[in-house]
């Protein structure tokens, strides 16, 4: 019991001694005293110091800069060369033109207007009145970029580093024969058969299983003018007889020539394809339009085909229109023509044709959604307009 008391008393005493000796409750060290210089002022001096801080009064003494007098006459067209030559602007004069300016504001006749906008001759340009109203800085001296000033080029000329003369056809020279597509007589038949008539009547099932087409015979090589020599082939005609190389050539040379010829021949086909004949004159090239692309065209035309004002007979008349298309997807309006019609009189066909023509013109004005890379596929379009399904029976 005493032992505990002793230990407790000793501990407390130790603690008290530590607190007192460690300075736990000592005041923090005083901060360094800040010293400020003070100047003693008198009342007059203080008033003199605070007087400028009073609210500023509007200064009426300061006159605003005078607005420069504007020449009321229409500003003549500045002559570019006149400005650098002006040594110093002459003193502003009371211009005579402002007196005539109000007349220009009145509604004049067209001839008067034309006169007011005509630039006067250079010596009579009153340059001085413009100087005060010029907001732009004067032109900085430019560095010399050419030893001799050259005359301004013609308006139509294209600026180029090397001047060149415009080439014009020499009427005396013999005109070269322009490259033309291979011509072929237009396909003709004893009767017009449209796609609509070719559709099978027995639903969507295939009536037959056609064999894939044979590759069409390569058309006879048309006479070409200076074909570009292929870099990889020595002679384009070489593959025409690949089985008959020169017997005297080595086998390696024959192999190289044949391969080069085959490559040149294959590469030359795309260039010849658009000009080939396909039975109906020009054959289309490139991949065919997908069903979606055809539907897009069909929908584009359909939404503009208004049959609301067609007669009942016209509603039973189907017409086939032909239209030539531009590469932009827009129809050539002048090429729209009626190819044939079925089911009604000529008058009714005319009504249907006019409504169909309006549809092509209206919705084609911004171009139909057709892929430009397949332009040869839709260069010419035949549209069969058949309002029969919309007729109320």
């Amino acid at each position, binding site marked *: 019991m005493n032992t505990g008391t002793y230990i407790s008393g000793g501990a407390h005493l130790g603690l008290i001694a530590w607190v007192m000796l460690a300075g736990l409750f000592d005041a923090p060290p005083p901060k360094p005293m800040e010293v400020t210089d003070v100047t003693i002022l008198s009342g007059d001096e203080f008033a003199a110091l605070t007087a400028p801080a009073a609210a500023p009064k509007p200064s009426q003494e300061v006159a605003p800069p005078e607005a420069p007098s504007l020449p009321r006459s229409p500003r003549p067209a500045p002559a570019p060369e006149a400005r650098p030559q002006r040594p110093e602007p002459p003193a502003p004069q009371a211009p005579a033109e402002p007196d005539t300016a109000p007349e220009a504001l009145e509604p004049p006749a067209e001839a008067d207007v034309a006169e007011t906008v005509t630039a006067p001759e250079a010596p009579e340009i009153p340059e001085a009145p413009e100087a005060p109203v010029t907001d732009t800085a004067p032109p900085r001296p430019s560095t010399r970029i050419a030893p001799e000033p050259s005359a301004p080029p013609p308006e139509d000329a294209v600026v180029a580093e090397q001047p060149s003369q415009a080439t014009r056809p020499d009427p005396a020279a013999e005109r070269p024969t322009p490259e033309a597509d291979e011509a072929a007589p237009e396909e003709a038949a004893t009767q017009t058969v449209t796609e*609509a008539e070719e559709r099978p009547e027995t639903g969507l099932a295939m009536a037959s299983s056609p064999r894939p087409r044979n590759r069409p015979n390569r058309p006879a090589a048309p006479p070409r003018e200076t074909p570009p020599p292929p870099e990889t082939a020595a002679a384009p005609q070489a*593959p025409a007889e690949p089985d008959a190389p020169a017997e005297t050539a080595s086998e390696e040379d024959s192999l190289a020539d044949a391969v080069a010829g085959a490559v040149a021949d294959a590469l030359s086909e795309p260039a010849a394809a658009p000009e080939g004949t396909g039975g109906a004159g020009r054959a289309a090239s490139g991949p065919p339009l997908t069903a979606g692309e055809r539907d897009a065209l069909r929908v584009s035309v*359909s939404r503009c*085909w208004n049959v609301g*004002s*067609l007669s009942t007979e016209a509603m039973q008349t189907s017409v086939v229109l032909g239209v030539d298309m531009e590469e932009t997807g827009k129809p050539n309006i002048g090429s729209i023509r009626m190819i044939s019609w079925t089911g009604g009189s000529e008058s009714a066909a005319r*009504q249907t044709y006019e409504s169909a023509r309006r549809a092509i013109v209206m919705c084609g004005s911004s171009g139909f959604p057709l892929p430009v890379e397949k332009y040869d596929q*839709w260069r010419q379009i035949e*549209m069969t307009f058949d309002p029969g399904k919309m007729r*109320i029976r």
Partner: protein
Amino acid sequence: MMLRLLTAILALVLGQAALPALAQNGPLRIVIDEGVIEPLPFAVPEFVAENAAAAEYAQNITRVIAADLEGTGLFREIPREAFLSTVTSFASPVQYADWKAINAQALITGAVSVDGSGRLSVKFRLYDVYSQAPLGDGLQFGGATGSWRRVAHKVADQVYSRITGEGGYFDSRVVFVAERGPKNERAKQLAIMDYDGANMQALTDANSIVIAPRFSPTGDRVLYTSYESGFPRIYLLDVASGQRRMLDDQPGTMTFAPRFAPDGRRVLFSLAQGGNTDLYELDLQSGRRSRLTDAPSIETAPSFSPDGSQIVFESDRSGTQQLYVMPANGGEPRRISFGQGRYGTPVWSPRGDYIAFTKQNQGRFHIGVMRTDGSEERLLTASFLDEGPTWAPNGRVIMFTRETAGAAGAPGLYTVDITGRNLRKVPYQGQGSDPSWSPLQP
């Protein structure tokens, strides 16, 4: 051997890459079998008044033309506030781009003048804006200033015909039964008016009940049934003079439901005698009457086909009221209506392709059309009471009577397109029933 094989393979590979996937011969072909059915937008700037006396006429004629065309439901007038161009001279060139910009597909320009003798002259031109060309030649109509509405209707008829390819119907009139008074004590009299409700004139007084007027093929005479004598009798009225006479006055009979033959010289009608009603034909010149049907049932409401070779009528010979077709000179009738309900008041279209009728089924009345063989039946309206169809001269519009329900119900005249669209009330202020549409006026 190796050389040939390598050459063939290489040429095949490169050739396949260069060839088009599929060659297409000729132009691209597509079929458009769907479109939209919308009113065709047109613009009609106010006609140019070529002198001061024509100013009011120019304004009124322009309004009537626009109302005629828009009333068909086939055209939509573009409001003048949208115009980008003004037409100050009939001879000035058309600024097609301005009209195309506001989507005007047809443009009507015109000029009106009145000379010193009071004669009105109206000339017009119709343009297809998207074709950028006139649609037909310019035309000029003349007449007295009092007939300015007819002149306007004729211009509208020309426009309608050139655009739709069908004849117009604006310069026509309607004879009908004008009614007034409460439902249980209604006064009726014959009246005539323009197709649009203007220029209404009474043809008879209201002292007796009159029903079922019918125009002659030339529009100068009217057949109708009157109870003036206490029994229904048929009368023939000359529209211009107002003179009338009773037809086939046979004691002990009742005659009603008359209708002209296409030649205008004969009249079909029903004659009730001894409790039986049959169809008869009367020659107006000789007064000779011939019987066309002989059955114990009720045959009435006959109507000739336009070529005069057949007659359609209603009969209850099958136990219920149905439609029948028979040769004009008599013969065995052939039933053409087989739907549910009762069919009546058949009228052959002036084009000969349809028969309009009234149908009553399940407490509702309908105006409908069907092919002359009874096929393709189509109901155009439905209401508390629709009845009495009559064809417009072009066979595309039907006018009929519609009576509202209730004690305060009143009959009115309505028109509907044979497609069932564009149901409109004829702008006639009073009550009317039993319309008969005239042919186009000369």
